[in-house]
């Protein structure tokens, strides 16, 4: 069959084989799928980065506020006199906004006493309830005296909350 095996041991002379059909198409599909997966991962990474950045802004602000010493005085807590008017409740809205700002500027407490935390949560819940009633009143266009009463109650609750937070800030 073979005269000399040594003569046949020339592997380099074996003919080149043609690639089977369909492999190139599979290569293109695979590359396309990987590119799509890469784009998806990149989008996820960008989204995650945006979420982290958005979350970091208030956190940084919060940390900077915490780092600065409290600058509140008791004078800031004095309620602004709101003239009684049966129909107009605009001054109450202004006062409510002032108290919101005051509350937002207070530094976060480092230690929270359980009972104080309970009081704060109770007040916040009641404010949320009043806010819901105010939304309802606005939606139904209820009479101004009714709305004034709600704004009045909100200002009272906000005042109480500010006092509690101030006391907490002072270490009481």
């Amino acid at each position, binding site marked *: 069959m073979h005269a000399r095996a040594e003569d046949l041991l020339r592997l380099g002379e074996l003919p080149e084989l043609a*690639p089977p059909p369909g492999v*190139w198409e599979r290569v293109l599909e695979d590359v396309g799928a990987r590119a799509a997966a890469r784009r998806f991962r990149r989008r996820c990474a960008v989204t995650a980065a945006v979420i982290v950045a958005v979350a970091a802004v208030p956190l940084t602000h919060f940390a900077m506020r915490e780092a600065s010493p409290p600058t509140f005085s008791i004078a800031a807590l004095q309620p602004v006199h709101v003239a009684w008017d049966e129909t107009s409740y605009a001054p109450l809205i202004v006062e409510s906004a002032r108290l919101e700002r005051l509350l937002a500027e207070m530094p976060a407490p480092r230690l929270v006493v359980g009972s104080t935390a309970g009081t704060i949560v109770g007040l916040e819940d009641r404010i949320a309830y009043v806010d819901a009633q105010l939304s309802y009143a606005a939606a139904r266009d209820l009479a101004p005296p009714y709305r004034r009463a709600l704004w009045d109650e909100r200002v009272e609750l906000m005042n109480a909350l500010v006092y509690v937070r101030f006391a907490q800030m002072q270490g009481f």
Partner: protein
Amino acid sequence: MPKPSQPIPIEIVDRARGGDRAAHAELYAVFGGPVFTLARRMLASKPLAEDVLQETFVEVICNIDRFRGDAEVGTWIKRIAINKCLMHVRSSWVSRRGPEIDEPMGEHRSGAVDDQMALERALDCVPDVARAVVWLHDVEGYTHAEIGRLMGRTTSFSKSQLARAHERLRALLEGAEAKTETTLCTPELKTC
């Protein structure tokens, strides 16, 4: 040193780096055959060789921007294919794979087949690692030291595997014993 591969104009490589699909197709047209041949000879399996061909060109297209041009692009592509083949050789699955018929083999064709087909059949009957070594050394031009490094083994390991492969091929290609073995040999079942 591996033997130099077919040269290809640098413009094609540059276009391929830029994501030009036509350039990718051109690389495949030039090197698809050599890669498939290399994989088919090293693995003695057409399905595995197809897998290697596909995986190699996916990697080539995805990583062509990392090709620095230190060597011919064909050498780089073949190196990727060789690494993939060696991964298959190292995997226990290759040595335990079941019957697989690439092309008709056996005594009934022995009178008609030419010498090259006899050599191909004999090569398929060589154990996996020895076959990979003999192909890398005799055809691709790698030195024993390079083969040892590629396989994570020593230079003498490569030498002994090559000697073993040559001995097996000679035995299969000559003499009555080889004739009997070739007749009985079914590489898929590793009976030789």
